[in-house]
């Protein structure tokens, strides 16, 4: 199983929704969403997952975004597709109590354990019943204490300060957890996809445009290639910068026979072909969809092909 973790930004929600609606999200993928706002896009996502009978995990005590300050967490969602989830932090105990008052048991809950200081909280909460899943950060102490079934979680995306910095090392190792998680006793693996852990609100016009494409190398490890624009002197002509980046992607794709094509990658290649510019959020969305589709194909269980 693969558990990608998202902060519920608009383009992330749209990516997941499109994948599920098109039957392109493998049943072996359970996205975890830490909602930042209860928007109509978020509600649509839940409806779409429900209609497709696809599981997703929703964090009830988010730490970032607009909902992070509300003391009583977000309202319980009466939806069969939702796995109620918590971050094991200082609000975990009250959040679990609130869930229990709604008839949800410890064994129904997905727990995200990423802070050493809250291992004790985790142990108190799940003393008798283990959580449905424990998302355990790659940290010796946490891994030792996490109960099965557990998920090996790590931030694999090494985020650079500026997009132009990806030019310095445009192809790098991404992950091999998918190769070993099972024999190491994990139920699954997880990461922040190509977004990374760092959360910041909004964006601003970049000097460089970067497209991050994950791919399987010959030995089946996952690598990531960064396609970055060259005219990075100022913030003008973002469409032109995108074109520079996507033409590099096109060239790379056609020179490597073993790169697996996905629906999202095809859309990016179409933009290269037609000289169109979809906008920065869509570029992120497509790169993310490509990653999900690729892992889905690897794990099998895709509903369509």
């Amino acid at each position, binding site marked *: 199983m693969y558990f990608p973790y998202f902060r519920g930004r608009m383009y992330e929600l749209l990516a997941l929704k499109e994948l599920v609606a098109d039957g392109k999200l493998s049943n072996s993928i359970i996205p975890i969403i830490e909602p930042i706002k209860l928007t109509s896009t978020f509600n649509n996502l839940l409806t779409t997952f429900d209609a497709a009978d696809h599981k997703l995990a929703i964090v009830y005590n988010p730490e970032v975004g607009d909902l992070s300050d509300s003391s009583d967490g977000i309202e319980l969602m009466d939806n069969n597709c939702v796995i109620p989830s918590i971050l094991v932090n200082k609000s975990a105990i009250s959040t679990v109590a609130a869930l229990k008052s709604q008839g949800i048991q410890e064994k129904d809950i997905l727990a995200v354990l990423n802070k050493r200081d809250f291992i004790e909280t985790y142990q108190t909460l799940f003393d008798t019943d283990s959580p449905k899943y424990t998302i355990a950060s790659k940290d010796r102490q946490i891994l030792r204490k996490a109960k099965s079934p557990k998920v090996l979680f790590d931030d694999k995306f090494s985020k650079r300060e500026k997009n132009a910095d990806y030019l310095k090392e445009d192809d790098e190792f991404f992950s091999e957890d998918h190769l070993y998680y099972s024999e190491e006793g994990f139920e699954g693996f997880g990461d922040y996809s190509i977004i990374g852990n760092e959360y910041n609100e909004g964006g601003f016009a970049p000097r460089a445009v970067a497209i991050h494409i994950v791919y399987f190398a010959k030995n089946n490890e996952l690598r990531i290639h960064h396609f970055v624009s060259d005219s990075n002197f*100022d913030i*003008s*002509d973002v*469409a*032109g910068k*995108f*074109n520079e980046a996507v033409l590099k992607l096109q060239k790379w794709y056609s020179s490597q026979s073993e790169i697996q094509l996905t629906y999202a990658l095809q859309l990016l290649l179409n933009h290269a072909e*037609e*000289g*169109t*510019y979809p906008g920065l959020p869509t570029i992120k969305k497509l790169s993310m969809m490509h990653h999900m589709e690729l892992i889905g194909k690897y794990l099998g269980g895709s509903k369509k092909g």
Partner: protein
Amino acid sequence: MTNNNRAINLIFTRRVLNDLLVNGTSEVFNYVVQRYVNDPQDKTHGQIFSEIYHSLGEDNRNEYYYMNTLLNKLLVGIHSVHTTTALSQLHIGQHIADFVMLNGEGKVYEIKSDLDNFDRLHDQIQDYFSAFSKVSVLASIHEYDRVQKLLKDFGDMGEAVGIYVLSEDDTIFSKSRSKEPQQYNEYLSHTNMFKILRKKEYENIILDHFGEIPDVKPVFHFKACLKKFEEIPILEAQNYLVQELKKRNKITRVMFNDIPTELRSVVYFSQMYRKLPQLQELLQTNYAEEK
């Protein structure tokens, strides 16, 4: 600068006004009122803004104070708001111009309050001259000699730069103390002018001058339009730039006059005059009533 000074610098901003209008309260506003205003509960928001502004004028003339004084002098005293537009924080090349005034021509004002430094002055001025032909420095009276000496070191370019001084009694355009800017076209650049413009604006220019917009793939649109723009003789291109930028801020004289002097530049530049009735209501409300 101390923290207290910093908070007071944030008072005349879109954010504070917007918080007051939308939420009825603003953390920054409350903080500054607590520190600087006596008996605020008996005063209206308008009186409080005015009081804070005048205390800025006495011992902490920050960039807002300079900018606001300049805007009032130019748009009330010298030019009419009907024919003149002022813009602030305009990206030109690698720098951001504090204040650009547009009527028949474009004039850039670089504000150097007592709190500013002069390290980047040469590069700032050079970038401003890549789009506009007249550039001036507005400094405090204490810095007049320093500015004059610095500009001398900039050669021809420095000669062309105007100097204005914000005197102790808030005059700027005193004939005896100021030097008018001269037209200087050595650094004018089609590329830098073009990059100031928004898509709709450069399309207007290309359409106006050539009768059509280049028909290319979307990702080449910017470059194709820039190429056409470069075909326009540079002073004509500059004139198009000024005409387009003038359209960015439309305000009537009545509206402008209805804004209290102290708040004019924040309201004007953030275009909050669109909410003028609500703003006026707020200014007449007692501070205590909002609590």
